[in-house]
């Protein structure tokens, strides 16, 4: 056991798992928040180590260009969110929305979720990944319902039903992939290992692969929140604790999409299989347009940004559906930027909801006057999410639209229209939230804004300069994605 | 030598314009009076008026600003400069490269701008009426004028008046429908610009009719004199413009001798007489129209100009 990479991988998985158990038993309800952040920080360090030491792929775990960046991103956002959640949850405790027992439960679940997501990212085995995604779903279901208000329970119930059906479909797809692989690779774990699948997919039975991809797209697509499978997403974001909304939008959606991507690689490695592009493009475009119009009639601020997440997942799916080095690269970039930006937005939204005591946008006005830092943070976040420069999302959207327009003008125009409609809605609401005569109660915001601005600054920096190794990985992955 | 001659001609032209203008006004009034079976004032009456006004003291409203006091001189100067650039009895004037037809129109525009501002300066209702109507008229008269300029200069291949009149004397200009239209249009514009009947009546202070008079209502003494002089120069300018474009006969062109100059002078005065007479006749036989029908009148002029410009291509491709 001398390979440092293997150690790091174990660390990335075991730190959250063990700290989950620890936090479940930890008595002091104040320190748990900090402990939670600490655990997340350690996980992040371990994951960052993977940049430098890469273990050889085992039967169950793998670290390659595809997942290394996402793992680090995942642990990083996990850490910042835990910092945010520490102050957020403390406030929830003060106003008595949560009892200490539930708080303990919450932190345990948080770490479990981190464990599940890391596992899903690092899994080298389709079955294992499926189990991990399912576990992640379960934990989030529990957290969404944690306030136990009727609305929260209803949201969790909806999430549960739709999520489980999605899980079932994904499992069937996974089984089909195995059946396809078994005929070539032979029985056993190899027939479920990524590296093997991608390597040998050329000789799989195309029909099975197609069928499998349909189920996987729908199954994991439900988790991604693509319309028309999105229904659980807005309510889950709106009713759960804000840190969970941040993790949902910023990470869980990415993880699900990541699963879809893995399978897309397998498919695109097989010449006879149908090109998955058209399906993904269609679903992506539907999601973008649908979400864009849904944004206009929102009253609840968190639900609105949830819809914006649907829109962006649509954009990303669209990009990968278009394929080609440019679009794929852009899609990967967009995944990264979106998870950073959207979680930052949810951080600010969480603070806003706490200082204003409401999530109804009609009661929130003139934030830049009453809470300059918070207000301008929100402005910056929204400007980023609608794709205005110099923030990173502009770069990815630039690449997606231009590269599409050269090949499929009609699609690009439709996408651009969707982007514009969404921008219209978000900026319209932003005008009301951040500007104008202040309205509603304004308690001073005591929480720390470091995580929010850290994310935004990262996106800003990435919009101007991308580190070379990241580019190299993404370009390699883009090639694999075909 | 040539330079001196040019300077001389230019100077003569300047003085001529300055001196003839009031005479022309007086002449037109006189003819009109005769047509109405009145004796009418003597020809030199305008000069007398000017001198009398110049000697009088000026009465200015309390809240008149410097604009009000400067405007008359600006108006006079711009009009005079414009007039001195229109070939009267000789082309190829020294200063003619300074401004072509378009620039001359624009110069008159500057004069009007100053006049309209002066009308607004005191802040009386009448001044406002005058200015706003003047600008409305101008907003149609100027484009009409420019379309005519287009027609002529598209034909002559130049906006330089000397070249234009030279071309008009030349053989290749035949009888053209465009030119006829341009002429009619130019006359209509001239009528409007000089506040003559039927657009405006230079001899009344009735609110319904007055445009030009309303603007200068507050003026008195030397200011009024300068403005009146500018008005008469403007009239002269338009007549000589018509003459130099559409009746360029006998105009002295550069390089001809003094005899030609004399001929030019004589023919020029003759043209003025004829023009003035026609104007007087026209004014006596037509009635003043409502202010808001002026737009139709000038709209017609604009259409004529545009048609003339377009018909050029049809009649013969250039």
């Amino acid at each position, binding site marked *: 056991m001398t390979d440092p990479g293997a150690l790091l991988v174990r660390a990335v998985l075991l730190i959250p798992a063990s700290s989950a158990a620890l936090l479940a038993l930890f008595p002091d309800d104040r320190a748990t928040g900090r402990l939670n952040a600490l655990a997340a920080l350690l996980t992040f360090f371990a994951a960052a180590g993977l940049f430098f030491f890469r273990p050889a792929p085992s039967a169950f775990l793998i670290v390659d260009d595809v997942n290394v960046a996402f793992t680090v991103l995942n642990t990083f956002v996990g850490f910042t969110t835990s910092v945010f959640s520490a102050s957020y949850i403390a406030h929830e405790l003060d106003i008595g929305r949560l009892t200490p027992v539930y708080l303990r439960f919450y932190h345990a679940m948080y770490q479990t979720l981190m464990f599940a997501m890391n596992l899903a990212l690092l899994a080298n085995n389709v079955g294992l990944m499926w189990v991990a995604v399912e576990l992640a779903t379960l934990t989030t279901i529990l957290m969404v319902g944690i306030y136990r208000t009727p609305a929260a329970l209803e949201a969790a119930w909806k999430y549960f039903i739709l999520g489980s*059906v999605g899980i079932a479909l994904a499992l069937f797809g996974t089984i089909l992939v195995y059946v396809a692989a078994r005929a070539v690779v032979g029985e056993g774990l190899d027939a479920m290992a990524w590296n093997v699948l991608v390597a040998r997919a050329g000789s799989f039975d195309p029909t099975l692969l197609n069928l499998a991809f349909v*189920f996987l797209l*729908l199954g994991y697509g439900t988790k991604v929140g693509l319309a*028309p*499978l999105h229904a659980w997403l*807005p309510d889950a974001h709106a009713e759960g604790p804000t840190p969970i909304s941040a993790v949902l939008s910023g990470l869980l959606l990415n993880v699900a999409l990541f699963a879809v991507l893995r399978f897309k690689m397998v498919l695109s490695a097989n010449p006879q299989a*149908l090109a998955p592009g058209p*399906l993904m493009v269609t679903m992506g475009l539907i999601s973008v347009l*649908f979400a864009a*119009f*849904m944004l*206009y*009639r929102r009253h609840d601020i968190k639900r609105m940004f949830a819809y914006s997440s649907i829109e962006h997942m649509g954009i990303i799916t669209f990009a990968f559906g278009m394929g080609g080095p440019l679009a794929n690269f852009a899609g990967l970039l967009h995944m990264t930027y979106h998870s950073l930006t959207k979680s930052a937005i949810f951080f600010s939204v969480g603070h806003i909801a706490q200082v204003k005591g409401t999530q109804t946008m009609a009661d929130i006005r003139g934030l830049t006057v009453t809470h*300059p830092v918070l207000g301008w943070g929100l402005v910056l976040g929204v400007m980023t999410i609608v794709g205005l*420069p110099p923030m990173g999302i502009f*770069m990815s959207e*630039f690449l997606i*639209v*231009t590269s599409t327009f*050269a090949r499929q003008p009609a699609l*690009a125009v439709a996408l651009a229209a969707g982007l514009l409609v969404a921008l219209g809605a978000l*900026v319209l609401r932003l*005008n009301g939230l951040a500007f*104008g005569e202040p309205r509603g109660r304004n308690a001073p915001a005591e929480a720390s804004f470091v995580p929010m601005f850290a994310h935004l600054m990262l996106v800003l920096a990435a919009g*101007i300069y*991308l580190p070379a190794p990241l*580019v190299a990985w993404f370009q390699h992955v883009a090639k694999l994605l075909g | 030598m040539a330079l001196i001659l040019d300077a001389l001609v230019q100077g003569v032209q300047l003085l001529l314009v300055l001196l003839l203008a009031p005479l022309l006004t007086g002449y037109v009034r006189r003819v009109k009076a005769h047509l109405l079976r009145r004796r009418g004032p003597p020809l030199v009456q305008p000069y007398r008026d000017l001198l009398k006004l110049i000697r009088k*003291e*000026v009465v200015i*409203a309390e809240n008149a600003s*410097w604009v009000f006091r400067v405007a008359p001189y600006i108006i006079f*100067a711009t009009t*005079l*400069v414009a007039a001195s650039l229109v070939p009267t009895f000789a082309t190829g004037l020294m200063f003619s490269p*300074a*401004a*072509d037809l378009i*620039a001359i129109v624009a110069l008159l*525009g*500057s004069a009007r701008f100053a006049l309209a*501002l002066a009308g*607004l*300066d005191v*802040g*009386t*209702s009448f001044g406002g009426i005058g200015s*706003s109507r003047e600008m*409305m008229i*101008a907003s149609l008269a*100027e*484009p009409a004028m420019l*379309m005519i300029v287009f027609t002529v200069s*598209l034909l002559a*291949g130049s*906006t*330089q008046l000397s*070249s234009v009149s030279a071309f008009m004397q030349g053989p290749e200009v035949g009888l053209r429908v465009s030119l006829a239209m341009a002429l009619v249009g130019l006359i209509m514009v001239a009528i409007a610009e000089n506040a003559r009947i039927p657009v405006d009546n230079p001899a009344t202070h009735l609110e319904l009719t007055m445009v030009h008079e309303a603007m200068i209502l*507050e003026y008195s003494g030397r200011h009024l004199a300068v403005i009146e002089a500018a008005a008469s120069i403007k009239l002269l300018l338009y007549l000589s413009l018509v003459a130099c474009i559409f009746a360029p006969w006998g105009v002295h062109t550069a390089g001809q001798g003094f005899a030609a100059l004399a001929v030019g002078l004589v023919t020029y005065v003759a043209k003025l007489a004829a023009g003035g007479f026609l104007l007087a006749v026209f004014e006596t036989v037509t009635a003043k129209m409502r202010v*808001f029908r002026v737009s139709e009148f000038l709209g017609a002029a604009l259409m004529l*100009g545009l048609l003339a410009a377009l018909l050029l291509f049809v009649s013969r491709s250039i």
Partner: protein
Amino acid sequence: MALTVLLSCVAVLLATSVAAVPAARASAATPLVYMFALLCSAGGLAAAGAVLVTGATAADTMDLPIGLPWLGVHFRLDCLSALFLVVVNLGSLTASLYGLGYGRHEPAPGRVLPFFPAFLAGMNLVVLADDAFTFLLTWEFMSLASWALVMAHHRDRDNARAGYIYLLMASFGTLSLLLAFGLLAGPGGDYGFEAIRAATPTPAVSAAVLTLALIGAGSKAGLVPLHVWLPLAHPAAPSHVSALMSGVMTKVAVYGFVRIAFDLLGPPAWWWGAAVLTLGGITAVLGVLYALMQHDLKRLLAYHTVENIGIIFIGLGLALAFRANDLRWAAALALTAALFHVFNHSVFKSLLFFGSGAVLTATGERDMEHLGGLIHRMPLTGFAFLVGSAAISALPPFNGFVSEWLTFQAILLSPSLPQWMLKFLAPAVGGMLALSAALAAGCFVKAFGATFLGRPRTSVAQAARETDAFSLAAMFVLVLLCLIAGVLPGYFMDALASVTQQLVGAQLPLQQDLRWLTIVPIAEARSSYNGLLLFLLIAVAAWLVAYVIHRWASHAIRRSAAWDCGFPDPSPATQYTSGSFAQPIRRVFGSVAFRAREEVQMPLPGEMHAARFRVQLRDLVWDAFYAPVESAVAFFADRLNKVQTWTIRAYLTMVFAAVVVLLMVLTVWH
């Protein structure tokens, strides 16, 4: 070298804006920020001006390893960008100078100071960008910075709406430019301008690109019907920013169009010229008509920006048409006219906005119906505004006239075009140009008269005081420029020679060594103009007359009440207002252009209430293009919103349907 200077100026500007974020509250922040901006734009002006005057043919380039990884950020400084950099930095210079004084009255400096330098930097960068990504990045950055400035006074509901529409239209424009560059770059995605120049697009592609560029750049420049945001946003910003947006940012948009249409896009087709020409003519006339209907001073100025953009595009359209027929010297003339007008408009429009800003600070009013008589209390501002008005009304001897005169000369060359459509179109557009010029004169008589002349209509106008020295300095710099560019146009035209050489491969004959500085664009016998001579003649004549009369006749003056034809009325309400001034013109044009309807309610005999007069104007452009979009979005939003309240079973049904449909697709596939 020059490029290095420019970029370092930009860097300083950006640093300033970052530094201004925390420092904005401090009282010293305002002068410091504007001072830095002033110095940077001075540096930029010097550098760009040097390039332009020397007419350096070898473009100066620089690459930075940021932005798109495999592309990097490319900057390039050629004659075209140098020209526009001169415009940009001149505007920035005067605006910063003005800001030194005007900024002191800013209620919320925290919302202006950080964004002002960023805005300047953005405009500089757009002009310098040498690849599609950098261009669009900086382009949108510029929009974003100006949006923030528009939102500076956000408590006013109209401003918030203005900012919203502005950002929406800006993004719309950027998206269409995005698509244009997408077409130019091709699926390979080589976004460098070098590669784009090298490529030869098919006619269909280049037509599409031109249309998209026209939409994208036009929406920023304010071409009708994409202008709606402009008269809302420009007045909403602080006045020196309005000056920048109107005078300079629209020019950056023009630059974008010129760069694409003349430089990147290869040889044009003749109908491009026709299209641009028509758009320009319509824009010019509609812009000035809209302006005439306004009584908000700054909005009036904004609409005049629309008009002047139209004039500029007329010149560009002619240049395209001539170039398409390979009449290079004619194209050079038209292009010179357009670019010279770009410069001129930036000068006098900034001047006018500064004037309106001075009025705003002195009275707190933008509505001309509440002003009047200011020339007595603000004589210097009044004088500056008067010069600006004369210049924008294209009156000799000021600069506005020269560029319009050149445009007319270019139009007069249209017979040499082979296409009949252009033959007919050009004179018609000439008529429109003349109409807009005449209407502009009327409009500025109204604006100046209602604001500065007559008697004060309100107590605030009564109590106005002359503005501060910095603002006046900024204004008088521009006044001088208006005059100099008017009387010595030759030098300016020669400065444009290198640009026309670069874009259409020809240039006008050198002007500055002609006799008496006359300008002769084509030939002596054809047309010539000498602003200097005219100016001197007018001055001398006026002075002479005045002197003679005062010397030998009378110079006595008596002040007394106004005569007003015998029945003067002391109430200032009896003066002509801007609305009543415009009434005759509204009667003539309004019924067509705005469906103008006037309602008069006269009290019957014995009724005590006052008579009422109401005018209804409808913005047909909005009704035709924007209202439908608005309602369509609302329609879809409402319809789709029902999905939010479905039952879980319904959602499951959707999932089920998706599964079944996809499976069917699969079966069909085989």
